[in-house]
């Protein structure tokens, strides 16, 4: 795959970088469509699946390291499948949301991811609107529609998606990062009970001070998803802490 070698050797500021990356993504679109097809017939609209699979494909193109000697397809297939599986696991709507709003939400999430990669920072609603050629009000609606996403059961075990968590990127372990926090004794066991991905996102935001967009890229989900997971984790910790202090004499 000479294009991948070229891409890997290139500085990401190089104007040709975007061009080659686009070429690689476009060239592999049939793969995303093929995988989306395999998951059709489970109630999710085909276009959504293709869109989600495409996000997976973009991630695969960005993360593939040709120097490791594997070929792209054997790397991309599990990455794209993982993205689609996550979609089924996480992205069920908790209430009846009009189809137009779901589409808007997915379009806004997709555009955010793409723009963040281009800009190297989180985009604004204005930038998303310009990119999608829709109004800012429609962007607001798309962002708000995400609130209706079903928060999956907190007790659901989260499978390790193969990207092993680097040591020290978690909290609630031996090196907890919680020293100096007044209520750390109550907090530590609660953090340990969190699913691995939630614990990692919490640590990256509040102990490593990464932005949500940086975390999204690192963990391989959308910024809007990071936002939802953080919100849910913080509210779970608050509830548990209140319960705990209520139980104390």
């Amino acid at each position: 795959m000479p294009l991948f070698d070229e891409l890997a050797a290139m500085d990401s500021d190089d104007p040709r970088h975007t061009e080659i990356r686009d070429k690689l993504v476009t060239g592999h679109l049939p793969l995303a469509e093929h995988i989306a097809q395999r998951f059709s017939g489970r109630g999710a609209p085909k276009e959504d699946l293709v869109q989600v699979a495409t996000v997976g494909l973009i991630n695969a193109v960005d993360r593939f390291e040709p120097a490791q000697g594997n070929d792209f397809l054997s790397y991309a297939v599990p990455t794209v499948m993982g993205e689609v599986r996550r979609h089924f696991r996480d992205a069920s709507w908790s209430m009846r949301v009009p189809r137009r709003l779901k589409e808007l939400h997915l379009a806004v999430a997709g555009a955010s991811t793409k723009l963040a990669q281009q800009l190297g920072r989180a985009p604004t609603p204005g930038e998303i609107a310009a990119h999608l050629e829709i109004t800012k009000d429609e962007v607001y609606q798309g962002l708000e529609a995400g609130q209706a996403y079903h928060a999956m059961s907190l007790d659901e075990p989260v499978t390790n998606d193969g990207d092993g968590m680097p040591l020290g990127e978690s909290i609630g372990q031996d090196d907890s990062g919680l020293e100096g926090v007044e209520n750390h004794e109550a907090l530590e066991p609660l953090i340990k009970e969190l699913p691995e991905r939630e614990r990692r996102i919490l640590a990256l935001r509040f102990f490593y001070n990464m932005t949500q967009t940086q975390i999204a890229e690192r963990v391989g989900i959308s910024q809007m998803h990071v936002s939802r997971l953080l919100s849910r984790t913080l509210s779970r910790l608050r509830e548990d802490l209140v319960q705990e202090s209520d139980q104390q004499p």
Partner: protein
Amino acid sequence: MWWDVTDPQRADDSIGAKDDIEMRLGANLVHLPIVRSVAVNIAMRADFDIDAISDLELAVDESCSSLITHAAPGSVLTCRFTIGADEIVFTATVNSPAPSTPSTTTFGWRVLSTLTDNVEAWAEPGTDSHHRIHLELTKLRPVVPG
């Protein structure tokens, strides 16, 4: 009902800048989604980036939850958004039986100070031997490089 506001610095109870937005709600967690969605709406209309919008939402949620936990039963949560050219200031206030402000060494405080650019908490005497507890968050518009 009027509160006895004694600190002259904080005594400006008028909606000074016409862009200020103030809400009064029962100090009850069930109302939080309303405050959150107003926060998101304000930050979106100010065209803050999507990280900043979400951070403000999480911080508003955290600060109001914390205040509600300390609020006197049946009291009112006052939320005020002051929108400047490059910042949004959010101030939440409740009546509390105790004069104590949220501790700056808790995890909750770490959350607030990570999500926003400045956090302040202060207490002042109120009516009926209650105290007014305030939490103020400042979120700056992120600087766009280039």
